[in-house]
């Protein structure tokens, strides 16, 4: 078996509408990559549809863990199987596969351990975004930039690249609840990972529904801010590092 290169982690929950198209696009753009679909106990045919494409390894969770637990499953797979680099894309096709090489470039060049595909690097804070969402984006930008000591424009982007060091760290320490993206940035930054943002155009989701609706977003915001502050207060040695 030749040394595996890129592992693309695709967390899915009821994405039957677009998983096939997402996998086909990823395979067309990155034929050498290993695609790993993590099906978070979907109630539709997501897993079966991913399997019949023959393009992906499908990890099927027996119970719904939420996006954080699903992503961590994929990152553990990548970590266990010796991948040097991993990418996380959302299962709804928001993240163009053609942008993955650009996302990974800073890692390949040895400039970064962890990269974020940012919608806002060239200014702006959310196209066609709701008022509440814009507030959240600005709040996380201010909070996370201060805690990490580096300007991070897009803390809610789910388009992320991992070098080997960040991969091993995330496999053990990924925030295991819904809406983990902002906390991940703080965890990475506070634990010595070099973060680089890469300007990335993103599409409207191709199908399925967002896991965050308006009613719950205030609750999530409070929960995530609380988690971020706690993560920042924790000294490095308290992280699980190699927890299994």
């Amino acid at each position: 078996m030749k040394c595996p290169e890129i592992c693309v982690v695709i967390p899915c929950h009821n994405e039957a509408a677009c998983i096939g198209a997402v996998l086909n696009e990823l395979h067309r753009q990155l034929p050498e990559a290993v695609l790993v679909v993590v099906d978070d106990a979907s109630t539709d045919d997501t897993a079966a549809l991913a399997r019949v494409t023959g393009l992906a390894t499908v990890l099927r969770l027996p119970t719904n863990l939420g996006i954080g637990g699903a992503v961590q499953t994929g990152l553990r797979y990548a970590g266990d199987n010796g991948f040097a680099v991993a990418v996380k894309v959302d299962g709804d096709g928001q993240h163009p596969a053609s942008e993955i090489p650009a996302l990974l470039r800073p890692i390949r060049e040895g400039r970064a351990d962890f990269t974020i595909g940012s919608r806002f690097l060239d200014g702006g804070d959310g196209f066609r975004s709701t008022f509440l969402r814009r507030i959240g984006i600005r709040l996380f930008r201010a909070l996370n930039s201060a805690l990490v000591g580096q300007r991070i424009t897009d803390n809610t982007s789910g388009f992320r690249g991992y070098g080997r060091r960040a991969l091993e760290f995330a496999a053990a320490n990924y925030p295991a609840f819904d809406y983990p993206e902002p906390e991940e940035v703080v965890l990475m930054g506070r634990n010595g990972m070099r973060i680089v943002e890469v300007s990335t155009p993103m599409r409207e989701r191709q199908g399925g529904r967002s896991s965050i609706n308006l009613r719950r977003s205030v609750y999530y915001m409070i929960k995530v801010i609380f988690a971020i502050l706690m993560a920042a207060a924790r000294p490095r040695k308290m992280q699980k590092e190699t927890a299994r």
Partner: protein
Amino acid sequence: MNRMQIVMLLGSLFFLGMILHQVWRQRLKEAYALLWMLFGGMFLILSLYPPILHRFAALAGIAYPPAALFALTLLAVFLILLQYSIVLSKKADEVRRLAQAVALLEERLERLERLERLERREPREP
């Protein structure tokens, strides 16, 4: 011994007996029984030696000693509920780890089974 003391004594004894019974029947883990027994024992002692309650009430600035009893009960319930939340959080972590391990192992098993089927269909050259 006044009536309140007798009720407290019987109540504490019944409560402690119930907890011991559950541990004996292996329905309650020793680790979780200990906190309950600690508070059951505390009420038993208070019912046998009421001056302790009076002393405590005076120290805490509670004018009416039976109110101190309520305060202690409330404290006990809070601590036990907190213990539950901690145990629950730990269990959630364990369930997540297990679910992830199941998903990873299942994929490995499928891969191995596929390999085995292939080998059976194409036996190796002698």
